[in-house]
Structure formats: structure tokens, C-alpha cells
């Protein structure tokens, strides 16, 4: 059961990534593309956190009396990574949305295939 769940989480994260990719590659709306990018991010974050996951692990805190607990701790690094990545993703999304607003003002549309004044 646990095993299944663990693989299930991997599967879920990959599914999320693919859903995001689907949105990015097929949806014409800029907003949807940004959402897709966020979904990809989410999927990857899930993937990362799963890597560090340890069944029945404890919080990665050294405290007096539990010096040997290192073996049972959840890997703290992925969590730190994910936190950082979330912040970055947040920043990118913010920039993206602001650009979308600019684009909408300029082109009066959100369809990505209509915003092609720069090409070749």
C-alpha cells in the first residue's frame, strides 16, 4: 500500500508535468500557458519532495537525545530546494502575468498565435 502510494506520487508528479506541458503546447491563451507553466513547476516540486521522502521518517532536526536519528530523518535538502523553487516559480509567474497584461494592452488579444510580430 505504501509502496503503491509512493510510486503513485511519482506517477502523479509526472502526470502533473505532462498536464502542464499539454497546456503549454496546445492552449492558445497566454493565461493558460502561464497556468501550464505553473502546473509543470508544481509537478516538479512534487517530484523533488518525493525523492526526499522516507517512510515513517521524522523531521530532520537534531535534538539532544536523538543523535542517532539521522538514519530515520527525512532528507531535508529537497525540502529546502522546493522552498527555493517555489519562490522562484512565484517570481517567474508574477513577471509572466505582468507581461501578459502588457501584451494584452498592446495587442488587444491573448491568443499566442496572433502575437507574432517578431519572427524569422
Amino acid at each position, binding site marked *: 500500500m505504501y509502496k503503491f502510494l509512493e510510486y503513485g506520487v511519482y506517477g502523479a508528479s509526472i502526470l502533473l508535468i505532462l498536464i502542464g506541458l499539454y497546456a*503549454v503546447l496546445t492552449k492558445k491563451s497566454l493565461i493558460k500557458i502561464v497556468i501550464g507553466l505553473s502546473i509543470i513547476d508544481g509537478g516538479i516540486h512534487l517530484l523533488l519532495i518525493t525523492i526526499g521522502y522516507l517512510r515513517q521518517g521524522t523531521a530532520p532536526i537534531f535534538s539532544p537525545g536523538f543523535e542517532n536519528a539521522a538514519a530515520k530523518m527525512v532528507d531535508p535538502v529537497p525540502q529546502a530546494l522546493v522552498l527555493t523553487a517555489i519562490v522562484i516559480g512565484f517570481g517567474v509567474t508574477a*513577471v509572466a502575468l505582468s507581461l501578459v497584461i502588457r501584451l494584452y494592452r498592446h495587442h488587444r488579444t491573448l491568443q499566442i498565435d496572433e502575437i507574432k510580430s517578431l519572427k524569422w
Partner: protein
Amino acid sequence: MVGSPVLLIAVPLLAAFVIPLIGMIWKELVRIVPGLVLAYMLVLSVTLLVEVNQNGTIVETIAGWKAPWGINLVYSNLTGLLATIITTLGFLVWMFSYRFKRNVDFEPAKKYFIFLMMLVAGATGIVITGDIFNQFVFIEITGISAYALTAFYTGRNSAEAAFKYLMMGSLASSFLLIAIAIIYSQLGTLNMAEIASKMHTMDPVFKVIALIFFITGIGIEAEIFPLNGWAPDAYTEAPGPIGAAFAGVVVKAGIYAVIRMVFTLFDIPAAHDFLITIGLITLIVAESTALRQEKLKRMLAYSSIGQMGLVLVAFGIGTHAGVFAALFLMLNHAVIKPLLFFSGSYLVFNSKEKRISEVNGLGKFMPYTAGLFALGSFAIVGLPPFAGFWSKLSVLTAAADEGLLLVIALVLIVSVIEIVYYFRVVNRIFFQEYNKEESVVPHKPRFNAIIAMTVLAILILVIGFYPDAVTGMLHSASSDLLDKSGYIDNVLQVGQSLIR
């Protein structure tokens, strides 16, 4: 000792946050302080480089956590060289863009310099960090500031370019994260040196998948075909000096990341051939596309992409001579392409469309700028006695040593194409009549811009006439890159005392 490598990242980041505050004191400080910061960085990176040259690699640990646990910065011959290139260009870009457009207000200037600081900090970080996740973070910092700078001009298509850049950039970061996740799950570490030392234990399938994701992720930054769709747009729409910064700073950092992966982290020999292949494809596609461009900056952008392809080819050769040639190319490109962007952006300064056909006869009105553009063109296509020649020659000799005759032939054929499009522009500037209706109204460059361009021109001539001025540095940098065990030892010996 002026400071430690960490200051190369910390100071500009700090400055980026301080700039809005000091702007409240005196508005001009917003423009001056970045210059001071960049000048300090320049001095620092050069002194450190000299020191590294004498005493060997500096490994700096952050916050007391030693490798492989903590984040560490590696300032070696190679990274130091690249950091010096980046800071030099940062400084020149600052000097050039100091009141680049006379009417730019305080507000935009503030943002501009904040993002420039972040860009330089991020690029320096990419180069000198010793930790892949940290590198990822710096790539993102560079990326975000680059998106913002691309979108700097309102009222143009800059938002479009920035959005494409951003789309590709976030895809890149996703790929990078996946690669990092794979590596971490397999090896349990993020430190480059330790990854490198443990790489042979990794499952080869995962290894290759990780490499592919890495190359794709960084390749987007390093403008590998077909991942470079964003690049021409961004170069075209970003302010002129930022185009120079992209060509000289961002791409260099991206290329560094690629080669660090291929040369140090991964022990896959076939990756070298892979580099040659994608490098050649990039080179050919980009240069042939550049031939038919109508806009000046777009042409320069494609040329820049092509040059990066050539750099990858040279790295892919993999020998000392090849790496030397690649680094030489990077150095020359970092000197020449900014000059072209600087002078080019003044040539089409008053133009809306920035078309190549609009520069007819400008040589008469702005001889100095136009002359520098011509000098840059001569240098970039590899005509002696200018800088580009030596790097091209070293690439070819390196390739010949490995018997890669087809590569040599292709590179040379592409060089002919390169000559054609550059000389078409030079011809237009100097040898065609100024046409009042079609040509641009000439615009005199500002004094500081002239200095910035002159410095680059002098560098081109110095390298061209006396290449030995830089070859020593490049040779030690290339030995540094090829010395994988030296890198691992240097980084890890700092952590040897702890626990294990």
C-alpha cells in the same frame, strides 16, 4: 586582498536592493552607484584572477558549511576568467548605457540598473558556484532580470519577446530541476565536485537522461538550436546595451554551465561528439538564417547564436587545443559582439524599424561609430590582423589535429556566409549614398558610449596584434577545465576534515 569571491555575488545583489533607497537621496546616484559597484567587481575579479594564477584555485565556503554539505564557490583559472569577462562587460555596458537615451526618466533608469546588477550578479554566480542547485538559482536570477530587461521599452514588441523568453526560460528551469532531481535521487548530493567523483557509480540510463535534461535546460540559455527561438527576439527588442550584455554575459554563463556538465560532472565520452553535432547544427542554421535578415540587431543576434555554436563545436573537440580555442572564441566574442551591438544600436538609434536598409551612407555622418562597427565586423568574421582571426585559426588547428576535416570545411563555408552578411551592412554604411527618405537620421554617440566602444576596439586590436596577451591565461584556464580530478580534490579537500 580586495575581497573574497563571494563578494562578486553579494555586492551587486546588495546594490540591486539599495539602488531604490539611495535614489531617494540623489537621483543621479541611481546611475552612478552601479558603476562604482561594477568597477569594484572588475577590480576584484581581476585581482582574484591574478592571485588564482599564482596560488591556485580559491574555494570559498558559504556560512561555514563545508563541501559537500554547504554551498561553495570555486574561483579557478577558468571560472575566474569567465567572471572577469562578465564583470568587464558589465562595467562597459554600464558605461555605455549611462544615459543611453537622454530622456529616460529616473524611474526606468532605476529599474534598468537594478536588473543590470541582478543580471551581472546572476551570471557571475552561475560561473563561480560549485553547487548545481545554486547554479539553478542563479540561472533563474539571471533569467528573471533578463526577462525584465527585455521588456524594458514599453510601446514596442518588447513584451512579446520577453514573454517568449520567459516561456522558454521556465521550461528550461523545469528541465533543470528534473535533472537535479534525478541526480540528487541517485547520488544524494548537489555539490558539483562530489557529483563528479561519484558519477561512475550512477546508473548509466539515469545518467544519460539527466545529461539530456541538463543540456536542454541550459541549452535554452546557451542558445542551442532548436532551443533558441527566444534569442533573436530578445536581442532585437532589448535595449542595445542589453543585447550586448546578453551576448557577452548571459550566453557565456550558459555555455559555461553546459561545458561544466559535460567536462566535469558527467563521464560520458560520447557527449563530446554530441556537442560537436549540435554545435554545428546551431552554427549552420543560425548563420544561414542571419544571411536573410532585414533588421540589424536580429542579424547580430543570429550571428551571436552561430558563434555560440562554433564555441560548442570547439569544446566538443575536447582536447586541450580545442578547449583553448573555444575559450578564445568566447573571449573574442565577448569583446567583439558587444562592440557591434553598441555601435549598431547607435547606427539605428533614430529608427523605428531598425532595418539594415536604413543605414545607407551613415559612415559619412558618424564616421567613428560606423568605423567601429566595421572594425567589429572585420574582427568577427575572422579577418586578420583582428582578434577573431586567432580564435578561428585555433579552432581550425584544433579540429585538424583530431582529423575533423568535415567540421573544418563546414565551419569555413559558414564563415563565407558570415562574411557576406556582415559586409553587406558595412557596404551600406560606407559605400552607398545617404538617402534622406530611407536612411536613418544620424545620432551622435555620447561621450561615455564612445569610451566604452573605444575600450572594446582597443581590446580587439591588442588581441589581434599581440594574441599572447591573452593566450597564457586561456591556456591555464583550459588546463583547469580539463583537470577534472584537480577540481574534485580542490573542492573536497576543504571538506575532508569534517565527519568522514
